[in-house]
């Protein structure tokens, strides 16, 4: 009896149908012509990076110890003692940065080509959720290294949650595991980072891709209509991106290795305390306005961004005018974001 026969008897599915479905869904998936341009492939990049993050993250848990006494020391151990530990940590660290960069690029592209329009509104919203989940990943992730920056970022970040109306205090206690940042906070962040967020983000990624496949990729104007199969051209493209990312992140790790910083000291707040660059706009904004205003404004911005696909049609009657609105709002958001980020970078 052949192996195929043996498996078929124990796993009785219609094999031919399976092959057919697989061909239809993956191998012969129609990819619109414009996807031949690299510019339109920024959606696959965060997915590849996420897969790499899962892998390097699992590797890091082999040595990381989530306790206030051991967290910093175990990160030091990974970076300085373990063979190629600096590389694995570097990949994870740079992977998170690149994931946020690629998501920003992807979202900007989707926004300005207005790919969020009916019937794809839900996928934009899921995309925003994915972006926020990624930021939560990043925040809980860099808190785990337990150096001065991560400790005080955790303190400041969780304090901000307190300002959320009604449930603020409850959220604060939930994230901290008590009133103060303590060992509970660290284990919570660890569990959220490695246990809670991954299945959540995988669920939303799947939903994102399913909706994308059901509608097909949105096609921007100005390209010749036509399709080509997923395999081999697009498949190779993804392989090339993966190889490029691995090489690129390894290079970054060697040129700009992630440092260790000072071990966390709950009694001394350092003079220059800054979050990671992707929180710079919010951070600078919060410095400019009173805390309550800052929190409410950030919340309002998030709401507008999330429901933009439903707001966009209300703003004007014709497509041309709506496009102008989108360009205006998107452009303004970009300019303000860049200004706030650069501003925060320039000042000590």
């Amino acid at each position: 009896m052949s192996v195929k026969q043996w498996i078929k008897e124990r796993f009785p599915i219609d094999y031919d149908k399976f092959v057919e479905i697989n061909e239809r869904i993956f191998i012969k998936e129609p990819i619109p012509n414009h996807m031949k341009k690299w510019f339109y492939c920024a959606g696959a990049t965060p997915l590849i990076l996420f897969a790499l993050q899962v892998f390097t993250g699992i590797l890091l848990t082999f040595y990381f110890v989530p306790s206030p006494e051991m967290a910093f020391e175990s990160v030091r151990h990974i970076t300085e003692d373990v063979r190629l530990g600096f590389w694995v940590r570097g990949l994870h660290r740079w992977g998170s940065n690149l994931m946020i960069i690629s998501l920003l690029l992807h979202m900007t592209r989707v926004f300005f080509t207005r790919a969020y329009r009916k019937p794809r509104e839900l996928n934009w919203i899921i995309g925003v959720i994915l972006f926020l989940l990624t930021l939560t990943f990043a925040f809980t992730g860099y808190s785990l290294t337990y150096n001065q920056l991560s400790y005080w970022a955790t303190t400041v970040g969780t304090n901000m949650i307190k300002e959320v109306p009604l449930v603020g205090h409850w959220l604060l206690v939930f994230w901290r595991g008590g009133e103060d940042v303590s060992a509970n906070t660290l284990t919570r962040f660890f569990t959220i980072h490695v246990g809670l967020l991954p299945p959540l983000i995988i669920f939303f990624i799947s939903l994102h891709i399913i909706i994308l496949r059901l509608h097909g990729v949105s096609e921007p104007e100005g390209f010749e209509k036509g399709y080509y199969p997923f395999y081999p051209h697009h498949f190779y493209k993804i392989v090339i991106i993966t190889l490029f990312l691995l090489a690129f992140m390894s290079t970054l790790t060697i040129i700009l290795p992630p440092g260790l910083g000072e071990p966390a000291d709950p009694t001394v707040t350092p003079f220059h305390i800054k979050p990671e660059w992707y929180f710079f706009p919010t951070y600078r904004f919060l410095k400019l306005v009173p805390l309550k205003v800052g929190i409410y404004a950030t919340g309002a911005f998030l709401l507008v961004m999330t429901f933009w696909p439903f707001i966009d049609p209300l703003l004007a009657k014709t497509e041309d005018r709506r496009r102008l609105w989108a360009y205006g709002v998107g452009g303004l958001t970009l300019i303000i974001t860049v200004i706030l980020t650069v501003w925060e970078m320039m000042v000590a």
Partner: protein
Amino acid sequence: MEQEKQSRRSFLFNLGIISAVFLATVTFIRDVIAYLVPPRKKKKFHKYLVAEELELPVGQAKEITISKKPVFVVRLKEGYKVYSGVCTHLGCIIHWEEDKQRFYCPCHKGVFDKYGNVVSGPPPRPLDQFEVIVENRLVYIQVEEKPGGPWA
């Protein structure tokens, strides 16, 4: 499916991609294994003073403790022998019986002679021995250096 003739260009392209993926995969897996498997460390030893040469008469033993583990220092006609006091059967602590010139393990009646060899009972191998060095009438043993810290 009909066999299509591949152009030179697409053949080279495929070859390039496949060899790049192969090389990347192999080196990646090698690096990950290196990361996961801690390197074998060379054992380091240091000398540890256990007795003066004339301290014990021939046929006598004394028990000392090194890193919370009992160690027997025995003076034989041939010179000093130093054994670990941990029975090689299931880890109980042995006793020195001077009248019978043997070691006895109370847990499962294992018996070792004064050279550490198994005489009777269940122990699977002789007692572990330390390397003995006698210098200037002092008896030392070679003790393995255990690095401190949580990652030892």
